[in-house]
């Protein structure tokens, strides 16, 4: 009964997370292109510095590498939220923005044990374009709000045709609605305000492929080693700009749609993980995504958006795995928790300040056993974004708190007859 109460409380929390928060604040860099990428919606991966291509995650649905789903032992349902705090400074001006956002929902399950065939599906953010701006110059203040971003809906399968090789493939439906809402005000009382909206709507399909080489099945000398990689090719987007002018006489809204195309860039990740002991593991990942050829909208095909550039990222993470059902021996209390630490360094896909922006981050988190195979994962990531040419673009300090619940309860397990 107690466990049921917990379950429904957690479910309620994540349902509430779907509700829109009052603010759409974020990084000033979120205004550029698709917004800043969200490395992973998964709090486990976020706590590990964003590493996870070779996660071998038995209790989470990996959104970086579909081949990792072959590690799933039980059906799982996950949902996540995150809180972002961003403090930006430039030339003596400081801004502070923050938001709470829904961070995704997914479901995965093993289907056929002999080849560890599994499937998963989910919905999660790929980029975040949230930001609020105020321009106070004469003749009146203008409030600019950017909302939305790029989202991913996926469905895929993974299997181990050979015990040492896990392969995964998923179909990604990329969809986005980035809304720019502009409010004009006047200090002159004779003048009335006005509202403008420009929505960037886009969608496209792409495959994502993943592979993992599992050392345990290759040689005893490679026990505990997993090498993973995943690749998503560039995506052709069908894009639309919708411009809505709500004049002072709001009954005569003007709306016009312009059709065009866009391009979401290819992404490549490679990672290696190693078990330092039965319960401790470490992982290092490299990730690259070339946004220099990407663009949100153009009436015709173009070579790219001059405000975007190639990005890359290296990260390391160390984890003490949670001891949920005594697989690492008998333990109690905090000793059952999973502990995670990570570090990442990379460049943002924004071409500002002449030479781009670096990002450093430290991360940590917990995996808290809740019941049966259910884990509550918490993460905190703190870092800085610093333009390579100092003073040419905002410096940012950011903190990101994440929480996800990966449900796997007794009622997920089919009853044998």
């Amino acid at each position, binding site marked *: 009964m107690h466990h049921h109460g917990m379950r429904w409380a957690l479910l309620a929390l994540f349902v509430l997370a779907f509700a829109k928060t009052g603010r759409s604040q974020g990084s000033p860099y979120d205004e550029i292109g698709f917004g800043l990428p969200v490395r992973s919606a998964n709090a486990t991966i976020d706590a590990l510095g964003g590493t996870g291509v070779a996660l071998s995650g038995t209790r989470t649905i990996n959104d970086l590498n579909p081949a990792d789903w072959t590690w799933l032992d039980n059906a799982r349902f996950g949902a996540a939220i995150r809180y972002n705090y961003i403090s930006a400074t430039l030339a003596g001006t400081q801004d502070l923005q923050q938001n709470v956002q829904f961070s995704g929902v997914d479901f995965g399950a093993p289907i056929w044990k002999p080849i560890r065939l599994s499937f998963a599906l989910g919905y999660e953010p790929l980029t975040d374009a949230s930001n609020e701006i105020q321009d106070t110059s004469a003749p009146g203040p203008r409030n600019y709000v950017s909302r939305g971003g790029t989202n991913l809906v996926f469905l895929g399968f993974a299997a181990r045709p050979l015990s040492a090789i896990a392969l995964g493939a998923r179909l990604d439906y990329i969809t986005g609605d980035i809304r720019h809402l502009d409010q004009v005000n*006047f200090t002159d009382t004779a003048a009335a305000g006005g509202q403008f909206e420009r929505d960037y709507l886009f969608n496209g399909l792409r495959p994502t492929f993943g592979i993992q080489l599992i050392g345990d099945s290759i040689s005893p000398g490679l026990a505990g080693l997993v090498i993973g990689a995943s690749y998503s090719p560039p995506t052709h987007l069908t894009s639309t700009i919708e411009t809505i002018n709500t*004049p002072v006489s709001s009954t005569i809204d003007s709306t016009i749609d312009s059709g065009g195309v866009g391009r979401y860039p290819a992404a490549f990740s490679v990672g290696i993980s190693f078990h330092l002991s039965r319960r401790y593991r470490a992982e290092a990942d490299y990730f690259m995504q070339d946004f220099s050829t990407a663009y949100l909208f153009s009436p015709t095909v173009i070579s790219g958006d001059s405000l975007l550039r190639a990005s890359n990222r290296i990260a390391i993470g160390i984890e003490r795995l949670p001891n949920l059902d005594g697989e690492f021996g008998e333990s109690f209390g905090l000793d059952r928790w999973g502990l995670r630490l990570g570090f990442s360094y990379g460049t943002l896909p924004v071409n500002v300040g002449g030479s781009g922006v670096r990002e450093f981050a430290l991360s940590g988190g917990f995996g808290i056993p809740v019941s049966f195979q259910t884990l509550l994962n918490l993460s905190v990531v703190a870092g800085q974004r610093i333009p390579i040419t100092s003073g040419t673009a905002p410096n940012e300090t950011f903190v990101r708190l994440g929480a996800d619940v990966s449900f796997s309860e007794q009622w997920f397990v089919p009853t044998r007859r």
Partner: protein
Amino acid sequence: MLRYAYLFLAAGLVLAGILTGCQDRISTLGAQFYADTVGIHTLVRNDAGFMQFADTIHPLVNVNGVGVTLTDSTNLILIGRVAIGNENLESWGLIQFPSLDTATAKMVTGIRLLLKDFAYKYGDTTSTTVDFRVWTTYNKVFDATTSLSMSDLSPIPVDSIDTVFGDTADHILPLPLDTTLVKPLLTESFNAFVITPGPNMTNVRAFGALHNYSYDENSIPELQLILNNGDTIYRYPTLDFHLVKDNSTTPSGEFTLRASTGRRERVNLNLTRPTDTLHLDQFTSINNATLVLHLDPNNTRLATLADDTVGPNIVQLGLLDSADHPEGNGFLDLSDPTHTTYRFQVRTILETWLRNPSQNLGFELRSEFAYRTIGGELIGVEDNTLNRWTFYGPNCSDTSKRPYFILSYSKLR
């Protein structure tokens, strides 16, 4: 274990709640990266390329293809004269009653026209003198489009009255008519009574009309007939309105709006000329479009009807008179110490025209505006006063008094 999980969840929720509930400073740093900023422009326009003014007189309105005089559905009959300065105006009342059957007509021994006062004066507002002449006109009045001159009236008046008459609502002004002259006309369908001002009249007075019944059923005119059997019967009009003869002159470079005559000023705006620096289009918000006019107080006169002295109306023109849309009154700019500056907000009209250019038929400045149901059509007319507004026009020699537009607009870059 669960206790810790609850604790973390609660702490996280509280922390997120507190932090997101804090008052933030909205970013100014991101503006340089924002693709869809809004440009705001404010400027003053008084050039003919943007706006043209034209005098117009519209004494008839079109109702289902038929012309009807502007005062056909008035709720006030205005009778009198004003001759002050260069203002020279006379207004006649016209009332038609249904014909009487011959038998009853033979019994008539006395006839009175009863008018019910409406508290209103135009011109000399101190005078309470009523100097009226009542005439008959036969076979001249067919409908409200009738135009009459003295030669259309009976050779002699059927009543003359020169008396003091206080200005009080529903106060009855009895006009005893010459029974000998009027009685033979009672059975005629095309007889009408015309009331004109006498020489001692220095203002215009108002009396209730047939169309005022819904507001004040006691106010409509009556024809009182006294019969030889001691009975008295009352007849109610089938038609009543007033005819205004305005021989006033407007100084050069100025224009006049006159109620009850349809004397208006038409303003046309060229909003989307390709060569215009405004670059207005359907995605432009017109935040302010104020037409500023300067009043010539020496050639302006307003009646004591307070509701109609706020300011002239702006009316958006349609293809049909019934499609005219009032946009409201202008208002006096109290920041002008001379109290002669009027401002008219027309942003809604401009926004409508930018989105529907075919509807840009201009707008009119009218003395007043009231909706009347004429022939089943809802039509706006200025019919219940004689107010005269004179403004300096675009060709005024004093350029500081010319009309101009203050235009603020915004659009996405």
